[in-house]
């Protein structure tokens, strides 16, 4: 698609490594040249990571963040998928409920913190609630969209074979909508990860987000700050890759044939 020749196999590994190395070099030398006393160099970040691992701090924080995501995201799936399927199934209900969702959706989950604290107190629970809230909307949207884009012939075929409405939903509509639902889940998981980190920076005192803020506040340990940020990025990426692997299952792969 571009003006140059087709890249070879080895280039698939070479270029990313090259770019990463270039970035690291740029980072390293900028720190040197600007003579900054505070901003960490790549080496000090690496040392910071090792330090955190040895102190077992990192594992505990990672565990806390993942746990909150699991609970909040899991709860969102349980509530949002049936609701989304129902709204997609019944356009009249969707027309009534949708405006409410559209007003609630742009409210940053972080803005819900004061309200969340009223209901849930401090600690884990408000964070889990925020993750739930943030994951809820993309899942509902994806389910509604998935259901309404089921080809009408498939619905008719299902009815033709004598399926009652609940059976139709289970055996035709849901499998047909599943690829889109999975895309929604993947997006929601990405958002959940962003939100849990943000929530931990404000309302909780454990987890990767808290680690970022705390490292700065107690001693301006920017090496730990950047180390924590890298861990957040890597784990977020790992989460995305794992949920993408579900897309390879045979019974949904048909919906992703053209996905990159």
């Amino acid at each position, binding site marked *: 698609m571009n003006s140059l020749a087709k890249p070879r196999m080895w280039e698939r590994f070479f270029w990313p490594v090259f770019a990463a190395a270039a970035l690291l070099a740029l980072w390293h030398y900028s720190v040197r040249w600007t003579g900054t006393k505070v901003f960490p160099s790549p080496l000090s970040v690496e040392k910071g990571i090792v330090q955190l691992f040895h102190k077992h701090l990192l594992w505990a924080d990672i565990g806390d963040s993942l746990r909150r995501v699991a609970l909040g995201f899991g709860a969102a799936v349980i509530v949002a998928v049936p609701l989304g399927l129902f709204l997609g199934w019944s356009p009249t209900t969707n027309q009534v409920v949708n405006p409410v969702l559209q007003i609630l959706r742009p409210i940053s989950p972080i803005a819900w913190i004061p309200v969340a604290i009223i209901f849930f107190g401090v600690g884990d629970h408000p964070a889990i609630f925020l993750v739930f809230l943030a994951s809820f909307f993309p899942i509902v949207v994806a389910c509604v969209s998935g259901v309404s884009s089921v080809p009408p012939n*498939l619905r008719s*075929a299902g009815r*033709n*074979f*004598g399926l009652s409405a609940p059976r139709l939903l289970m055996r035709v509509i849901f*499998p*047909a909508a599943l690829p889109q639902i999975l895309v929604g889940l993947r997006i929601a998981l990405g958002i959940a990860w962003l939100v849990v980190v943000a929530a931990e920076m404000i309302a909780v005192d454990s987890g990767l987000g808290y680690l970022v803020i705390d490292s700065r506040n107690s001693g301006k340990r920017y090496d730990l700050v950047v180390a924590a940020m890298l861990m957040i990025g890597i784990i977020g990426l790992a989460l995305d890759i794992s949920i993408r692997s579900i897309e390879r299952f*045979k019974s*949904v792969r048909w919906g992703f044939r053209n996905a990159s």
Partner: protein
Amino acid sequence: MSLAEVITKSSGDGQKLKLEHLHMVYGQGAESVPVLEDVNLEVSDGEFVCIVGPSGCGKSTLLNVMAGFLPATGGTVTIDGEVVSGPDSRRILVFQERGVFPWLTVEGNIGFGLAKLSREERRQRIAHYVQAVRLQGFEHAYPSDLSGGMKQRLQVARALAVNPDILYLDEPFGALDFVTRVIMRGELHRIWQTERRTILFVTHDIDEAVQLADRVVVLSSRPARIQDILTIDIHHPRNISSPRYLELRDELLKQIGLAYEI
């Protein structure tokens, strides 16, 4: 019912399907569009009837009403004396495209309507119809691995597997290329010879109608009424260059109002 009984079900006697004063109107009041007007038809058991007509005349609507997907505005559709009031697995519709379930394998699709059978019966039925439509070797393939023609064959197999009284086909070969279409016609005919069902086949292809049908129903343009019914009195296998074939074909073309000289 044993498999043998299922296959040889039709005994070719009497009336299967009856349309009486069928009216169909879309919309209401000032915006209403009459689509079908006073359609009357009788189809015998085991007959192969083609429905042709100009584009947009309401052929598909007629089929959908007969299958029970659309309620008629007036008149009745009766099958075996029973009035049609909704979709039913005794009369299966084969769609032009996007009719197979993409998340199920070939076996899964064919077995879709067989949930009430025992495991062994299901297996037998599926195997039989895989053979019947010549999809052996593809039992575990997914529709995304199949060609257009194969997907249509899959739909036919899935439809036949539930042992319907009537098979409705809505321009089933319309999305296929010419060569595949010709091959599929042969396949459908072969299957029909073995598993005699009543078939109603909508097509815009005149040749297809003359090649396959016992009778051809010609619909007028909208609002559609039955303009004429031609009986194709040629024995199978039909030679598409025989004088009688050409005669019937020309007659149909004339009915539709198409010039047959270019």
